[in-house]
């Protein structure tokens, strides 16, 4: 008997396979699984429902057009969609042209985000780790992630030395990594 997590991953793979053969029903099911995650990420970055809907549309259409871009061997579909959505939303926020092709977004195996229960559990853990960070470090990580600010932009805004900004953001991400490895 497969665990719920394994069942979620297995269902994702079947649906992505369906996309490769042009199955529109598979697209609808993938949308139902992940649209809440994709929309929440886009809305958090953009703060505008119309712009978030545009990113939602773009992300799923790209998956439809190029389902082979997702490499199931190297990460869960939910994690991959989250990264792509965040990047596209930041591009939209900063009014710049995307430079990363979706098939070049490869990430290491990360927690499964297939089901809403798994997502809620993982989110709680992330918030726990964020809660242990100093407020200044948390703020820098959020500026880099949710606003797409460069290290020097964050240094200018906070008045902290550039080296401190780099160190704190890196340490924040490493703390997250350790929490999910341990």
């Amino acid at each position: 008997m497969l665990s719920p997590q394994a069942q979620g991953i297995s269902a994702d793979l079947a649906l992505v396979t369906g996309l490769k053969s042009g199955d529109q029903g598979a697209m609808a099911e993938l949308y139902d699984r992940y649209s809440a995650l994709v929309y929440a990420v886009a809305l958090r970055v953009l703060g505008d429902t119309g712009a978030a809907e545009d990113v939602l549309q773009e992300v799923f259409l790209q998956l439809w057009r190029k389902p082979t871009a997702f490499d199931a061997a190297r990460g869960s579909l939910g994690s991959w969609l989250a990264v792509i959505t965040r990047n596209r939303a930041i591009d939209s926020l900063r009014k710049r042209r995307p430079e990363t092709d979706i098939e070049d977004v490869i990430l290491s195996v990360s927690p499964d985000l297939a089901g809403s229960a798994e997502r809620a559990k993982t989110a709680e853990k992330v918030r726990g780790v964020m809660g242990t960070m100093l407020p200044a470090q948390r703020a820098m990580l959020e500026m880099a992630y949710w606003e797409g600010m460069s290290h020097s932009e964050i240094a200018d805004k906070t008045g902290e030395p550039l080296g401190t900004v780099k160190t704190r953001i890196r340490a924040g991400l490493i703390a997250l990594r350790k929490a999910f490895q341990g």
Partner: protein
Amino acid sequence: MSEHEQYADDLLLYALDTLRGEERSRVDEHLATCASCRLELEQLRGDTAVLALTATGPRPPQRARQRLLQAVAREPRLPKIAETSPRRSWWGALGWAASLAILVLAAALWKENAALHETLASARSQAAESGRELEALRKIAAPIIEPEAQRVTLVAAKAPPQPQGKAFYLRNRGSLIFLANNMPPLPPNKTYELWLIPANGAPVPAGIFKPDVHGNASVVNPLLPAGAEAKAFAITVENEAGSAAPTMPIVMMGSGE
């Protein structure tokens, strides 16, 4: 400061998609030749993925679903040839080898099977059949295991050839097949050594190999401890007899798929 430390900040910016223009191109060039930095980039991206989960909010409106499904219905699918074209990622170029490697693995398993049967007089006929099937599989797999076979790797037109390796590992059987191409020539009296990196403990030697004149190499079923869990595989350059522990630097590395 090591070469990798020099790129550490850039990789973080790259993972956050805030590295642009020339700086990005410079890192792209380095990534094309550095497996450990590619691995670090993939891990940093994995870290950022979990950060996305702290976003909460309302579900998208129903009209967004309709809009998408209408757009999907209007979109003609890509021609088959485009869907099967090689990925531009660094890992994709060896995709063709996977199915052939499975054949090699199957051949190895058949060989094991045949050996067992030979010890049983009552199963002689089955052994003969296994032998014939093994021979058939060997013929099919010959293009990747025979030294004289011509090997062609197709990559993006402008991409310079890069060293690439692919490991196929069956943990419960301790079976490992490793294929590599575009490997740089070795200095005299040196050899490449493959390492299984377990989740805990020291790297395990997984065979030594030297590339042929075309840069191709393979390792088939090296002696491995039973059930060793592989977190990653890595390659180092060692003295000709091989080594019991890796000598830095790691020249290639890949995490478990």
